[in-house]
């Protein structure tokens, strides 16, 4: 161990130290080892830590101090919608009657939980303009795949078994083509035109009788609204395909436009983005799926419905794609989203989108003075800059991102979307104040000046973090994936 290393929990371990609190055996003892064949009894115990309770708290408090969240500071990570995570939602999710209920209890004993789920489904239907919603999918990518499986089932039910292709824009999230593959489709790329939108001519070229679906984010990953969405829907529908909406960017348009009205047949939502579920350092999320009336029969089962004033799980759904997850989805995250929707209402959600878009446009206009803006037009909730100008001076976008760490910020998403050179994707969200935006803008402009006059300070960043840049090549070449003494 280097003296600057932060010890692993295992390195704090000392033989004989404990922090468990287990009940005493209150029944007559039982000779267990006589009941289990000896080769099924573990000979070496799993090497879990032997630490005190205070050791645990110090360890994880130390680790938390080596981590950065939205509550630590500004987090303009494009495409991730790092908005404030309301504390009330956390409190509500910890109510015993929500937190400590078992999925297999008699449904009459969990009507309150089912009421919340039903009400959330109704709210999401209204916000997206879709006919029916299922809360079963666990996260965004899971929702994408769920919807594609439904589209697949729909085509198969129509005897349309040659629809093997799913069209994905070149600017799409990596999960889109990956989900298409997992669902058994071939991902076909459609190009972006000079305005940053799906190239309609290219779309017409790749659409054919093999097209199962087009996956689209709107606004797209450049933060631009796909203005020709009506024409795109026509092209896809005329070819017999379905239109799928990736809800990653819904935060831009709540109350302004609805995927259902745009002609989308299926959508997924990221409740951990738009609806304030905390990201948790990578999850858990929740990825509900909404569909048109035509696709409703294929939703995962069971579907939560209401019959004679009672909430029930409906299993008798013969066309359903089946289960995509055990139980009923990530209830705890759904509950947080529900609490947020109830806090905001229609007016609040629309205002959230209004300010998300206002903030992004404001920052974009301020930053374009020093950074290339490949698509110079009003954006929605996020925008993409290019570090081309700085690259010519020997400073890469990665360096700029690392330099932002010194200023106390989480950097924007970098090198995505793939169709912008040296991309920086900035999403401020609506929960940030003008002062926060201004301070970040000042830092970005200051870094641009550094690139001009003192590039080394940017190239060698970060300077103020607890560790410097990591040797990622070493990590991949000689993988060490667990602690070894």
């Amino acid at each position, binding site marked *: 161990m280097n003296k600057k290393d*932060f010890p*692993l929990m295992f390195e704090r371990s000392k033989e004989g130290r404990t922090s*468990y609190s287990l009940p005493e055996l209150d029944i007559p003892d039982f000779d*267990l080892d006589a009941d289990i064949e000896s080769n099924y009894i573990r000979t070496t115990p799993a090497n879990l*830590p032997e630490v005190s*309770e205070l050791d645990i708290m110090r360890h994880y408090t130390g680790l*938390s*101090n*080596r981590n*950065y*969240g939205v509550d630590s500071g500004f987090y303009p990570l494009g495409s991730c919608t790092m908005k404030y*995570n309301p504390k009330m939602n956390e*409190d509500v*999710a910890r109510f*015993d009657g929500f*937190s*400590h*209920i078992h999925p297999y*209890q*008699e449904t009459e004993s*969990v009507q*309150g939980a089912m009421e919340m789920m039903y*009400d959330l489904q109704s709210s999401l239907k209204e916000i997206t303009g879709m006919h029916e919603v299922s809360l079963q999918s666990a996260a*965004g990518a899971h929702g994408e795949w769920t919807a594609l*499986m439904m589209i*697949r089932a729909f085509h198969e039910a129509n005897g349309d078994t040659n629809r093997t292709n799913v069209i994905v824009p070149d600017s799409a999230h990596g999960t889109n083509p990956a989900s298409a*593959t997992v669902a058994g489709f071939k991902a076909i790329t459609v190009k972006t035109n000079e305005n940053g939108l799906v190239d309609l001519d290219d779309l017409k070229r790749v659409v054919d009788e093999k097209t199962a679906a087009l996956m689209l984010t709107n606004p797209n990953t450049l933060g631009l609204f796909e203005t020709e969405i009506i024409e795109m829907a026509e092209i896809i529908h005329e070819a017999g395909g379905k239109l799928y909406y990736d809800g990653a960017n819904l935060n831009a348009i709540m109350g*302004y436009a*609805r995927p259902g*009205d745009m002609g989308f047949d299926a959508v997924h939502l990221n409740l951990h983005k738009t609806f*304030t579920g905390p*990201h*948790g*350092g*990578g*999850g858990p999320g*929740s990825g509900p799926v909404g569909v048109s009336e035509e696709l409703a029969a294929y939703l995962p089962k069971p579907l939560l419905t209401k019959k004679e004033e009672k909430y029930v799980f409906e299993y008798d759904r013969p066309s359903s794609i089946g289960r995509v*997850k055990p139980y009923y*989805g*990530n209830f705890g995250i759904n509950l947080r989203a529900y609490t947020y929707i*109830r*806090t*905001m209402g*229609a007016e609040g959600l629309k*205002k959230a989108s209004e300010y998300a*878009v*206002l903030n992004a*446009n404001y920052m974009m*206009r301020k930053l374009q003075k020093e950074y290339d803006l490949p698509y110079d037009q*009003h954006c929605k909730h996020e925008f993409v800059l290019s570090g081309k100008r700085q690259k010519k001076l020997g400073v890469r976008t990665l360096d700029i991102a690392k330099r932002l760490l010194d200023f106390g910020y989480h950097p924007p998403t970098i090198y995505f979307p793939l169709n912008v050179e040296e991309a920086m994707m900035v999403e401020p969200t*609506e*929960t940030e104040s*003008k002062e926060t935006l201004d301070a970040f803008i000042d830092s970005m402009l200051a870094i641009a000046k550094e690139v001009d006059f003192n590039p080394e300070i940017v190239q060698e960043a970060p300077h103020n*973090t607890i*560790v410097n840049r990591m*040797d990622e090549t070493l990590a*991949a070449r000689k993988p*060490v*994936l*667990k602690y070894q003494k």
Partner: protein
Amino acid sequence: MEFRYLPMTDSDKQEMLATIGVDSTEELFADIPEQIRFRGSLNLKKPANEAQLKKELADMANKNVNLKTHASFLGAGVYDHYIPSVVDHVISRSEFYTAYTPYQPEISQGELQAIFEFQTMISELTGLPVANSSMYDGGTSLAEAVNLSAAHTKRKKILVSKAVHPESRAVIETYARGPELEIVDIDCEDGYTNLQQLADAIDENTASVVVQYPNFFGQIEPLEKINELVKSQTKTMLITSSNPLSLGYLTPPGEFGADIVVGDTQVFGIPAQFGGPHCGYFATTDKLMRKVPGRLVGQTVDEDGVRGFVLTLQAREQHIRRDKATSNICSNQALNALASSVAMSSIGKHGLRKMAVLNMKKARYMKQKLKETGLRVVHEGMFFNELVVDIGSNVSEINKQLLNKGFIGGYDLEVNYPELKNHMLIAVTESRTKEEIDIFVKELGDLHE
């Protein structure tokens, strides 16, 4: 109307609009074609203030019978174990729960190291060298394992024991439709996977064999024999789904030769919360390391030689490989993996075995009491903390009556196994006291008569 999560003032807004060069925010939405512009007002409930909404949600929560008000003998994949207080204190630290996936290692060492420790603990429990950072849950983790086995062996046939959790089997079925795999069910006999049927079904086209250990009925499958059968075919893989608590006492599947071990760490520090979010784990061999779905954290050093951690081997993943990725998983269950790590640290090396043993002993006490009451405990042989009892009448009806007596009864097996009419799957964790078991058995006996 004021919205406390929206900090912009009117004067901020005016200044910003001037910078952008527009008169109103409406102009920023002018690119949305009028034809699809939503001009109405969303039909949602009116916004509620904090106190009012909290009260309303508390009322909603109070409509639910819960594991704190009732003694539960319900398991079937989700268990009522004690959660140490430290767990919630750690995961409530907002540097953890308000962070994104640790893409910037310099300011994410806390999360990365916590995941690295989680991977280590899972590896220790399962007896396999490689564990990932988490999956959505045990069911989807199992389905991903199945798909990996097919991709790796380039075979389509999968044998799945009917003693695997029915909902996990349902998830496997759905996932298998993408790569068009053939799922073959292997029946159970006396609570165990029918080994003869398994031996007959396995052939050179079999990608993998899937069993649960301990299985859905609580029985401890003879993994040693099963692995021998599986390995009689070259390349065929053994996949097991395991309750990780049981591995505190039982020989880990990795030691028997399992190629992939998955399951759910809900038993460690994660509340039942109506079935999710829980936390899937995924462990495998060195050979399959570069095909693992999801995030992996690896150890490395920074420019000054200080130890640190990064997301690694990312060439497997969707954001790099797109349609060639080994899985589409992006978000996982990081915060719940953290909760389980804290719980596993708290339970510790010796506590783990002790806890597993408590579960097993109490389940055996339950078995004895049921027998004394004249109820038929259906299976013999080795079991963990769950057992099947024939209660002689409809399980759901009995459970409704038990609710009034302060109990959440066991799982109704007839739902998934029509042949197991009136059969209840009972789970006994360390949380259940002798008194609760005694009264529960008496109530069951009375209702039976």
